[in-house]
């Protein structure tokens, strides 16, 4: 089977190398399909419980390499496969306008395939070195994908920013693995288990933290998120979808895997993850609201959703720590399910953003508007995505958030004072996230798709704006409908997926003795209720809609301009803008955010053209990235005199080196002697 696969892979690569640029995409699509088939063929049985495991001979520096796909890996592999498939189908048509850049496209599709394979490898290898290698392969291929439009300066800048930060993440992972390897002398993942059993719990926690930081950078937890809002917007839309759909999820996978492997103090870990996640969630959405670049807005929402997933994991860990089975179950289930959900609706949203970009060639939502007339499909899909990401019933987002809420409320009953306070904060955080998300997506959807077109090209009030905008081709919409369909399915029949999740969650609970006499909530059963409730809800809506139709049949239906409170000349200029929509919020949140204004006051009776821009900035980025870079440059400037071209100085270095090596020990000795003397006084 392996040979067959590698043969196909090889032929695909050669095909991409030499095919003409229109067919490259087709090859990539089929290759992704093949990969998904092969991996799914292994993963599906693994998900329902029969693990797949093989041991490869490996090489001298690595030792034996064991490949193992358990339920957890299987879940992630399937999630990855789905989004990669939708991504490649969408991307194939999305890339049509770029058909002239042949080499560029070749690199693009090759990296796409490499990314897919490396992601699957990451989910399945059990050997530190191979893991690191596939990890960096993933990072590099993702980088190549992001910088597709590399001739744009800021694209390259964002790409390099991403590359360096993922390298930092790999450094942290390396430290962790070295720690294990030094103590146990093996690179296999089982060594980590062994390690955490023989070492004190403290060591285990430290180890976990090192790994956590490493994975958190990839996953985009605040404050390690700074690469994310830059990398996602500059990438081609299907890549943005994949980046925030699956690539950052790999970080989540890593964290979960480490929770599985490291036998540390779960409660502490849980608290840490919980805090970081709540902060990430709130911070992400708080910044998302003030973004006026559609893709950047979505990028910040990825941070928010990572936060939600993290809350789930944190709850799960605390559940393990406090031997509260239901809590653990709900937490991890919620986290895993939300991983799937987010990969679905976030890729969907990014694809829609891509459609918008291709038809209007701008991402600044202040220039958009009224697109629902030209692009009804895109609008509808975006609406579905928005509802889902806000966690509104009857869509999938609600299910996972409901599970996490369940976990938190379940924690309520087994908690002591301190943790009760934390419970309240978690609830507050989650609710705030939800509310802000609604605020944000009402803004995004309505400004982009509703009202009139704001772009200067069509400033006149007519609703059919410039006309250049048009709906995308079928093959570009099809993958989006795939995602949407799956989302609705999850929303309506969650229990199906919960049953699929039983095995992965069981892995976490395997080696914990749970406390049976804790109050058990029927939250899981209630999901079965939600099945038919949401179905009923939809039916009810349809019923009311039907009634409305019936009633309105016999009525006079007129169409008039919008009621302008007496001013009957509606123009795109007088519409509410995104900026004004969030103005109150911005004023409230000013201390937390940092927005630079660039405005010119209006004066005179007949004022000339004025403008008013706001540039939202990320304070954490400023503190963690910009300022240190400036500092580095400053320190650098102190030392550039070294290579100053003067021969004598060069020789002086030699003298100084020799002299100091001779003298300094003498000085130190004498100093010590004096010290001793003083001590003996």
């Amino acid at each position, binding site marked *: 089977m392996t040979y067959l696969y590698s043969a196909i892979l090889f032929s695909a690569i050669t095909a991409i190398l030499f095919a003409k640029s229109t067919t490259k995409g087709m090859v990539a699509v089929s290759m992704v399909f093949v990969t998904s088939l092969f991996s799914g063929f292994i993963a599906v049985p693994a998900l329902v419980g029969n693990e797949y495991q093989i041991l490869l001979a490996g090489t001298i520096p690595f030792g034996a390499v064991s490949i193992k796909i358990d339920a957890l890996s299987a879940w992630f592999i399937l999630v990855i496969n789905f989004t990669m498939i939708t991504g490649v189908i969408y991307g194939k048509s999305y890339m049509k306008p770029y058909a002239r850049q042949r080499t560029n496209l070749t690199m693009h599709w090759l990296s796409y395939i490499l990314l897919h394979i490396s992601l699957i490898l990451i989910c399945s290898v059990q050997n530190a070195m191979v893991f690191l*290698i596939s990890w960096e392969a993933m990072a590099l291929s993702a980088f190549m994908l992001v910088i597709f439009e590399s001739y744009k300066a800021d694209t390259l800048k964002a790409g*390099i920013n991403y590359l*360096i930060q993922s*390298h930092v993440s790999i450094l942290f992972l390396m*430290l962790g693995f*070295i720690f294990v390897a030094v103590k146990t002398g093996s690179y296999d993942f089982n060594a980590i288990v062994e390690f955490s059993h023989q070492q004190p719990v403290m060591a285990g926690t430290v180890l976990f933290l090192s790994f956590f930081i490493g994975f958190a950078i990839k996953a985009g937890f605040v404050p390690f998120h700074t690469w994310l809002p830059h990398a996602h917007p500059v990438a081609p839309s299907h890549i943005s979808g994949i980046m925030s759909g699956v690539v950052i999820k790999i970080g989540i996978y890593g964290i979960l895997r480490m929770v599985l492997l490291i036998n540390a103090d779960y409660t502490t870990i849980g608290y840490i993850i919980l805090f970081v996640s709540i902060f990430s969630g709130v911070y992400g959405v708080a910044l998302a609201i003030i973004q006026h670049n559609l893709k950047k807005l979505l990028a910040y929402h990825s941070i928010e959703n990572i936060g939600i997933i993290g809350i789930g994991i944190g709850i799960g860990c605390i559940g393990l720590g406090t031997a509260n089975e239901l809590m653990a179950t709900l937490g991890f289930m919620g986290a895993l399910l939300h991983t799937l959900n987010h990969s679905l609706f976030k890729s969907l949203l990014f694809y829609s953003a891509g459609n918008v970009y291709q038809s209007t060639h701008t991402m600044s939502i202040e220039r958009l508007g009224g697109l629902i007339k030209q692009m009804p499909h895109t609008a509808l899909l975006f609406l579905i995505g928005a509802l889902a990401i806000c966690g509104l019933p009857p869509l999938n987002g609600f299910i996972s958030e409901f599970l996490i809420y369940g976990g938190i409320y379940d924690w309520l009953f087994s908690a002591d004072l301190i943790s009760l306070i934390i419970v309240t904060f978690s609830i507050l955080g989650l609710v705030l996230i939800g509310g802000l998300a609604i605020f944000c997506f009402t803004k995004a959807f309505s400004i982009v798709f509703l009202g009139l077109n704001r772009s200067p090209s069509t400033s006149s009030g007519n609703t059919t704006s410039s006309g250049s905008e048009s709906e995308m081709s079928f093959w570009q919409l099809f993958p989006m409908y795939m995602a949407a369909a799956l989302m609705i399915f999850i929303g309506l029949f969650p229990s199906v997926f919960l049953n699929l999740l039983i095995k992965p969650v069981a892995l976490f609970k395997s080696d914990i003795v749970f406390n049976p006499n804790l109050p058990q909530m029927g939250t899981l059963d209630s999901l079965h209720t939600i099945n038919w409730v949401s179905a009923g809800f939809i039916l009810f809506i349809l019923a009311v809609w039907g009634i409305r139709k019936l009633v309105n049949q016999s009525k006079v239906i007129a169409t008039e301009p919008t009621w302008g409170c007496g001013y009957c000349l509606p123009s795109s200029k007088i519409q509410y803008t995104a900026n004004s929509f969030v103005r109150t919020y911005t004023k409230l949140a000013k201390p937390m955010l940092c927005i630079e204004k660039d405005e010119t006051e209006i004066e005179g009776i007949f004022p000339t053209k004025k403008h008013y821009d706001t540039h939202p900035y990320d304070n954490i980025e400023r503190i963690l990235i910009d300022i240190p870079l400036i500092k580095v440059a400053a320190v650098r400037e102190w030392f*550039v005199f070294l290579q100053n071209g003067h021969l004598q100085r060069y*020789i002086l270095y030699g003298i*100084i080196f020799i002299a100091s090596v001779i003298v300094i020990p003498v000085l130190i000795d004498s100093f010590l002697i004096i010290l001793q003397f003083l001590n003996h006084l």
Partner: protein
Amino acid sequence: MTGIYLAGAILIVILIFANRNKIINNVLLILFGLLQSVFTIYQCSNYKGTDLGYFTSDSLGILFLITLTVVSLPALFHSYLYINRHDESPQSRSVYFAAIVLLITSISAAYLANHIAVVWIFTELTTLSASALIYHHRNKLALEGTWKYVFICAISITFVFIGILFLSLSLSGTGSSDLSYANLMAKSDQLNPFWLRLAFLFIFTGFTAKLGLVPMYTAGVDAKDKAPAPAGALLSSALMNMGFIGIFRFYTVIAQTPLHHWANIVIFVSAILSIFVATVYMTKVVNIKRMFAYSSIEHMGLVMLGIAAGGIGYYAAVLHLILHALVKSSLFFQFNQLYRVFQSKSVAYVGNYFKYNPTGAIVLLIAFISATAMPPSGLFVSEFLIFRALFEGQYIFVLLLVLLLLTIIIWAFAKNIFKILFTPVVGFDDSNVPQINPWESLTQYALLLAAVWLGLNPPEIFVELIRESVILLQI
């Protein structure tokens, strides 16, 4: 055989230098290539054999000799292309070839020498030949570079000589007067520590000029900048390895004595300073060749860290040297094609290389990944092992500092390389960009792939040789 090799090489040098005929020169070059390879094979065949009393083919020597040969054949090939393209005057051509042959010969001899004085002599020879190579362009800057290189190297050689004198002083207590490493190892317990200390200090300082470490790294940068790229490849790969051998063989002696710890501290200081200097200038320089040179300094710093950390670090250091030699030379070879496209060394005037020469661009990309030791590359393994050694030796803070510096270096390196690869240069007319023959990059691909292969999946024998070469340090 060594005798024949040396004699033959010297003969070839003289002949090349003497005649002005292009054909004969090329023939002689090919001859030398053959001689070099035959010599290498022979040395592998009589493992641990000794020729002329002063040349022992021990494992480290063999490893480096093979590396040298692997690097030098493409180096000769590229020099040939280079010289032909610049239609040099016969005189400068023959000087160049003679010098490069002499360089290769003396380096190989120095690898195999088992006597500290012999190493020293051949080090002098390398300075001589290298200076001829650096001065190849015969302009003011080249002259300045040469002058500095020669002067610094002369001083360093003097340092080494003083070191040797001190060594003999420390040896004189034991009654024997044989300065061969074997004897030193044997007598290591009776050596006078005071003289030994001074000896190590001076020898170390002296060889840093070749190895490219603080304090004497300075002239080396100018040399690699000014020498033609194929020669630069040798200077920044094989020559550095020679400097390493000079220090390492003596370090093995020190390691047997109570001074081991002290020596480690000295090496630590020098290595960390080197990485720091590399960081400072990697973020600063715009001259691509100098950038490569500084990255070599960084790598040498890592290697010495591995040595000082001990344990698995010894193994890692040797591995890192070999892989670095392969990668860095391919980078320098690639630089020539880059220069032919843009006619400039400065990052500012170079860009969007991907468009003009995709094959070369991919070489540059892979070489970048290797030079920054990102995982798929071979150097990742060695660097990982070095970090592990540091961790094992409980030099955690050193490790963290180094990681920080390396991150900055990678950032700077990435910024420049991707600028070169992707960002278009404003006002660069690509009307008369020469069409680069992709087959010229073949050797570079070969070297890079070799680096990856040796790193990720080294053959048994290779690993055994490295283990063998550091066996004396496992105490």
